[in-house]
């Protein structure tokens, strides 16, 4: 009597690499690498923050003894930072300026930046708060 050879069940894995590449491309496109400057800014913890889009320019106001100001990742004076905002605004009128100000600063110090921004015509501003890890 001839014994029939039993076919072993198997899962085809040939398309696994294709799926992996597809996911890889997705993550490469959607991921944003952290580009914050190396400066300590204690952002205020307040509820009601909205997610911010990417058409942005970042200004960081630190509460250190020098009251350092950063435009994106570069340290500079406030007028220089505003000039950069003005230049970016000419190519992108919908530009939103993100203010990363330390909660220990006085409001008058932050208001000075607002006055400069008003002069530059950058009226859309977002006051960055601490991100809630659990979402809204």
């Amino acid at each position, binding site marked *: 009597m001839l014994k029939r050879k039993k076919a072993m069940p198997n899962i085809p894995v040939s398309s696994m690499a294709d799926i*992996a590449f597809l996911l890889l491309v997705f*993550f490469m496109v*959607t991921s944003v690498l952290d580009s914050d400057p190396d400066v300590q800014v204690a952002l205020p913890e307040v509820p009601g923050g909205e997610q911010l889009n990417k058409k942005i320019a970042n200004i960081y106001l630190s509460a250190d003894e020098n009251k350092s100001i950063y435009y994106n990742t570069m340290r500079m004076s406030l007028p220089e930072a505003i000039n950069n905002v003005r230049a970016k605004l000419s190519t992108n009128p919908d530009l939103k300026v993100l203010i990363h100000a330390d*909660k220990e600063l006085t*409001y008058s110090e932050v*208001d000075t930046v607002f006055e400069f921004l*008003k002069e530059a015509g950058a009226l859309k501003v977002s006051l960055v708060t601490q991100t809630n890890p659990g979402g809204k």
Partner: protein
Amino acid sequence: MISLKKKVELDEISAASMSDMAFLLLVFFMVTAVFFVKEGLNINLPRKNAKPTEILREHVFEITVIGETVRLKNQSMGERNYKSLFEFRNELNKLEIPNLPEKLALIITSGETKYGNMLDALSTVQLRGFQKVSVKRKK
């Protein structure tokens, strides 16, 4: 004569490890990816030479932030004092304010008011539903 042709070996690149590399990179990007980067309160600054807006006094809610304390003043409701921004938030949410879209929340800060406290007050009035919000700095 029988000639034995030697089979020419073709050069080839092994692609067997390609999927391993893909998975490795995939894991890296999954771990480092940040989907929502930042949160914040959106505000629109007034133009430099914008004309002041006239508003009825009874529609104005003056919110003076002094250190951690808050004073709320309104023509019809009178004056109320809160010991902390937390208490102010709780009490404001309980207040019944008719015709809220017409009302203006005027946040008044002194020279010493901390930015974090001002932002807390701003967030509170925005969440309460005030659509007209103004911030004034006392000189």
